[in-house]
């Protein structure tokens, strides 16, 4: 009984932590720095929910692949000969070697570098040298991973039975994203940052703009201050009303152009998400230093450069900004309790020519700066929550409601996982 008692202890402790979480407050320190919670996060959050990992235009042609690791699960996402996108465990059925070690590449067939076991793009083993007569290739196909393609945003799920409500997101978000035609984009730039902080600190930081005024001079050039959320004050009422009118007028204009704009908020769903097309300030075109377009070629069906920014947030690990001329997309992947990979990709029209239609430095300037600032904020938070003096603090009901929705979702899903085992 000694052994089971040892195993039981952390789960009990986790359940206690979950049970005593105080709504409206940040999480207790172990959620940000303990190995037990991290392991539970991987098991119950990242291996049981739909995780945003890549965009379809990274793998434009048959045989193109990208790899990603969720916890210790290496995953391969590739486009097959019928232009369909598939995901597999990136693990050879021979002796387990990772099949594709590169982050991206192209293959004819999938060949294990170790002993050249060869799989076709459907994951079927088609060649294995030196195996005895009677060896049945068909019994050693690659193990598939669930994949959903939301108009070019690729989500994978490692659960045997993935959350079915992903279909709600696909159905409701499809019309919002479709006009931007991710399939007809290319990755103009990608930057991976490893933040020295727990992944939830990264996500919580993303879910509020309370910190924006004080920290993001580049980002706030294009953002209306009123979109951040404010505590009601008499002197702000007129400005806020004005902003609300701008939103109303903009939405009417964009909707007329076939760009769905209204807010959808489903952050409490198992496959939680939220979206809204928001006006941008000044020229109103793009998240750039002068708020003008960063790329001369507009995306997909969009005719008007002044189409604001469609923001899309997903639980537990992504956010995206779709503008008329480019898309910025973010993936958050936990590495250890206090390190997190933040992967940012900038997409432009696939026919846009670098140096002619767009300049990478200009395209990436705002979010490179913002990412650097956010990284600093997250890392400082990590230092602080590691202190014995740290106690959960209260969220602003006006500017941190999305943080609360994130932590509520997280606590709910973790609790559900612990119950299910």
């Amino acid at each position, binding site marked *: 009984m000694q052994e089971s008692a040892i195993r039981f202890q952390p789960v009990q402790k986790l359940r206690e932590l979950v049970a005593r979480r105080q709504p409206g407050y940040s999480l207790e320190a172990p959620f940000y720095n303990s190995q037990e919670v991290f392991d539970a996060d991987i098991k119950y959050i990242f291996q049981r929910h739909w995780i945003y990992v890549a965009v379809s235009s990274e793998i434009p042609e048959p045989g193109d692949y990208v790899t990603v690791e969720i916890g210790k699960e290496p995953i391969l996402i590739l486009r097959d000969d019928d232009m369909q996108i598939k995901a597999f465990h990136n693990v050879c059925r021979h002796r387990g070697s990772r099949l594709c070690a590169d982050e991206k590449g192209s293959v004819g067939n999938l060949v294990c570098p170790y002993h050249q076991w060869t799989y076709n793009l459907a994951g079927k083993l088609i*060649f294995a040298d030196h195996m005895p007569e009677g060896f049945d290739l068909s019994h050693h196909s690659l193990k598939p991973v669930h994949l959903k393609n939301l108009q070019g945003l690729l989500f994978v799920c490692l659960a045997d039975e993935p959350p079915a409500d992903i279909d709600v997101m696909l159905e409701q978000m499809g019309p919002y994203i479709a006009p931007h035609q991710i399939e007809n984009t290319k990755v103009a730039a990608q930057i991976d940052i490893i933040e020295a902080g727990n992944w939830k600190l990264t996500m919580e930081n993303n879910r509020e703009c309370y910190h924006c005024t004080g920290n993001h001079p580049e980002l706030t050039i294009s953002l209306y201050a009123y979109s951040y959320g404010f505590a009601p004050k008499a002197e702000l009422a007129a400005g806020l009303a004005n902003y609300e009118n701008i939103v109303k007028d903009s939405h009417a204009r964009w909707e007329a152009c076939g760009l769905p704009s209204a807010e959808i908020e489903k952050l409490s769903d198992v496959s939680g998400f939220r979206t809204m097309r928001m006006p941008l300030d000044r020229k109103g075109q793009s998240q750039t230093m002068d708020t003008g377009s960063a790329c001369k070629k507009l995306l997909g069906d969009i005719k008007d450069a002044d189409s604001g920014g469609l923001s899309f947030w997903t639980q537990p690990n992504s956010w995206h900004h779709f503008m008329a001329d480019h898309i910025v997309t973010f993936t958050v992947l936990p590495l250890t309790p206090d390190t997190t990979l933040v992967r940012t990709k900038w997409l432009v029209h696939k026919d846009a020519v670098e140096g002619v239609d767009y300049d990478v430095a200009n395209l990436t300037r705002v979010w490179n700066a913002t990412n650097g600032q956010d990284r600093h904020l997250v890392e400082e938070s990590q230092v602080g929550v590691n202190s014995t003096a740290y106690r959960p603090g209260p969220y602003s009901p006006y500017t941190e409601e999305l943080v609360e929705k994130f932590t509520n979702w997280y606590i709910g899903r973790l609790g559900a996982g612990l119950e299910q085992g």
Partner: protein
Amino acid sequence: MSSVNTHPDTHPQAADLPWWQPGEDSTLQCVQVREETHDVKTFVFRAEPPRRFHYQPGQFITLELDINGESVNRCYTLSSSPTRPDRVSITVKRIPGGVVSGWLHDTLRPGMQLNVLGPSGEFTYVRHASTPYLFLSAGSGITPLMSMSRALTDLASGADIVFVHSARSPRDIIFRKELAQLASSHATFSQAIVCENRQGEPEWPGFTGRLDAARLLHMVPDLMARQVFCCGPAPYMASVRQMLQDCGFDMQHYHEESFNFAELATAAPDAAVDEISASSEGGGFNVHFAKMGDDLSVAPGQTVLAAALAKGMRLPASCTRGVCGTCKTKLLEGKVDMQHEGGIRQREVDQGFFLPCCSKPLSDLVVDR
């Protein structure tokens, strides 16, 4: 209690031995060097490890020699007959200044080992069986025709063969005694020799001067009914073609072994004319490995990978049929016929890549290995 010497080293049990395969890498051990004339030697080889030699009379092998630290490949037709499958031989005339023939004459001794790629070539009577033959040769061009003669007589095929050989002088006649022996012991084999001069043998009773149409018709009155196989220096073969055309011969029945005088450029130009130095027509293409610096010749029907492996090069490869793509290589120059099974993408081909395992050269190649 066997009367046959079954010592494995000298006469292995044939049934236990694998066969020599075309395009396959082998190591040959020199077991005998025979002096045929003052400047012609026959080098006899056995396979190491033991194999049975399987080839068509008239085919050539490619020697891979390391001469003064330089890798040299040179093709020689086999003078031996496949009817005696335990040994092969090549018969080589020393060319003054000739690097390869000189090395063979001066250096190759019984016990030494060579790498060879073989056998290959289309110059053989095998496709034209059951017809009367006229074998025409000059100098060391006699070797493929001697191989054919030995095979046909060994098999007691009853083939009707007239063998007309041209030599500079009586002392330059290669296989002189054996030709006479074949003629005396096979009713359907006849031979005639034409010497340019009688030097060294004033009593030479045969033809002197050069072969011409009148002399040929005199020696072979039924010339028109025969399949002609011709091998010798280019000027000799050109004159034979002219003679035959002058006679109204149907050139569809004419077959010749053409030579590549690769050594000519670096050797004495005049003397090298007689060097039988390289492959036959359709004898394959050269592949240059840009990084490794190796060169190899790919036989007709052979893949680049097979040729490389046969030469002992160890290129990354696995499936050998275009599935896995392990051998994928940039093709810097040349064209190939590639029959892959999904191991490479069209856009990779468009970028200049190919799979050596399933590609046969359509020209000389330069590859990025």
